[in-house]
């Protein structure tokens, strides 16, 4: 049976999903990236291999997330796509009648409005990542609460307290202040959830017609406090899809399925989990810009580079990349 692999390596989590020809999830892995995208992908692949039955053949791979280029080289991706597109595709696949998609990931948040399966409007957060998953993560660590229990704390709130959510720096000092004043932890945490929802709705949803069914996805959807805060703010029911936390990976897998069709995949196989990949960065000396170029190598041979402004390092095949890097190192010695 053919399976399609989607890999979503984000700032907080690394997710791998295998879907079948009909787009149903056969297997999924959710693990923390912990700042090490390469080993996160490799460990994820190992777990996935154990989980899959031997009759499943990977026929296509898509990668997404902030480490999509890196993970694309490691697994051999057929398509590399940004996480926003991947999420939108996954949402309309699992809930074809959906009209509003709220998505909060590790570092980004977005809203997508669909009508009859077609995107009619969308917005994404700007550079500022206030109110996204990594901020919640940081706060949970600061309060000494496992992030998984954040939601249940929030649900136990009785008198949520007002937290300034406009900027995460202010939110943090506000929370510390409230703690010192003696507010209950539960009330502070739910107050934070409300602040984040307020921030989200003000930034992304202002003036938009949010109609149900509303789907809430992304890692932050695991937080029941956020769901409650959204429902209270919008006075509408919020649906959290079964695989809310790996929707990006599902989207990448669906994109791979659409790209490969009946062609050959570039998937390098599960054995890549035991290869020793190394990444290095260097400054290109080609012009005044001195771009920082990242190269990924195996046994001293370069597989790919990226990061330049002009695009000369972004070559498709590994041999060319290796030659480029060799040429640049000999010239800089001279």
């Amino acid at each position, binding site marked *: 049976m053919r399976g399609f692999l989607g890999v979503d390596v984000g700032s907080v989590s690394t997710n791998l999903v295998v879907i079948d020809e009909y787009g149903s999830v056969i297997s999924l892995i959710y693990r923390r990236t912990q700042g090490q995208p390469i080993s996160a992908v490799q460990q994820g692949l190992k777990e996935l291999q154990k989980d899959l039955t031997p009759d499943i053949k990977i026929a296509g791979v898509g990668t997404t997330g*902030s480490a999509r280029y890196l993970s694309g080289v490691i697994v051999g991706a057929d398509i590399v*796509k*940004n*996480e*926003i*597109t991947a999420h*939108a595709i996954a949402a309309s696949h699992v809930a074809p009648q959906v009209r509003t998609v709220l998505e909060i990931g590790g570092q*980004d948040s977005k809203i*997508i409005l669909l009508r009859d399966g*077609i*995107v*009619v*409007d*969308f917005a*994404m957060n*700007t*550079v500022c990542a206030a109110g996204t998953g990594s901020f919640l993560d940081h706060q949970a660590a600061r309060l000494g609460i496992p992030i998984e229990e954040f939601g249940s704390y929030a649900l136990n709130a009785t008198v949520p307290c007002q937290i300034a959510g406009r900027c995460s720096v202010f939110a943090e000092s506000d929370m510390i202040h409230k703690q010192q004043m003696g507010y209950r932890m539960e009330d502070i945490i739910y107050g934070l959830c409300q602040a984040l929802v307020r921030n989200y709705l003000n930034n992304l949803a202002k*003036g*938009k017609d949010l109609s149900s069914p509303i789907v809430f996805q992304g890692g932050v959807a695991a937080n029941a406090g956020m769901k409650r805060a959204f429902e209270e703010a919008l006075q509408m029911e919020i649906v959290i899809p079964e695989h809310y936390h790996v929707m990006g990976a599902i989207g990448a897998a669906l994109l791979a399925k659409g790209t490969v069709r009946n062609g050959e995949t570039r998937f390098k196989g599960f054995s890549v989990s035991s290869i020793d990949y190394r990444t290095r960065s260097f400054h290109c000396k080609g*012009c*005044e*810009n*001195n*771009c920082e170029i990242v190269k990924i190598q195996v046994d001293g041979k370069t597989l790919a580079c990226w*990061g330049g*402004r*002009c*695009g000369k390092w972004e070559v498709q095949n590994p041999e060319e990349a290796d030659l480029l890097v060799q040429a640049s190192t000999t010239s800089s010695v001279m």
Partner: protein
Amino acid sequence: MCATIGVPQALLYYKYYPQWEAFLKGLGAEIVVSSATTKRTINAGTSLAENELCLPVKVFFGHLVELRNQVDALFVPRVVSVENGAYTCPKFLGLPDLARSIDSSLPSVLDPTFNRRLGRKKFYEALLDFGKHFTNKKYRILRAWMMGLSAQRVFQRKLESGLTPVEAIANAEVQTYKGNLKIGIAGHPYNIYDSYINLNLIKRLREWGVDVATTEMIPQRTLEHEASYLPKRLFWSYEKEVVGSVFHWLRNKSVDGIIYVLSFACGPDSLIQVLLESEAKRRGSLPLMSLVIDEHSGEAGMITRVEAFVDMLRWRKV
């Protein structure tokens, strides 16, 4: 008498260079244009500039620094007003003074004043004053100015035929891009054509098979007419053009979506951003994305957003 004049490839260069070139050459000057913006330009500019200044002005300073040892004087016109009843951004009004204040090692700054609000007589007096740096013959100065104006008309026609200012200045041919999507890019020319500060936006879009239209490619009359839908006339000329282009696209839908590029600390931009976003929402005809750039612009975040915008527009179409 001045011999070699440095023209920074920044700010109003993208709007008036052909005119300035013909004018200065007509006066007998030799011109040195600074090279395109690089990381070094930005580093040099930001280290000299007040932190509160907008990125384009910081970039401009970087270009002045580059020209420092190559020229006898720097050409920094004081563009106060380019039409009746409207001004340019306050930073253009004070640009020569800003330039003089940043670094004492800079060559002298030549600052002809272009101010249409003072009437024809004053305008030409200022012109002749400036011309005296090169020649004492009045007719020569006026002839050079006329040459500038006609060069600008040729330039304007090239822009309207679909060339970007950079292409038009380089005498490039009009190319037909067979993209299956068309995006309108609105914004100040020094933001949308400086490929370093906007991370190669136009080239990237074209590589993705997207046709690009920009504010400069729309005739001035159209821009003026479209902007007049506002209940009150905007008193900044260049912002009025940006507003005019966005309104034009929202109305005739000749593009599939609009990207509005603005720089972080720009005062006028921050006001028209709200105006444009609310108007786009009200009319609901086209998606509009604002892209804010500053010297800390993260490549990853910006490319992701543009790529997603393009994907969504494609998806919307099918």
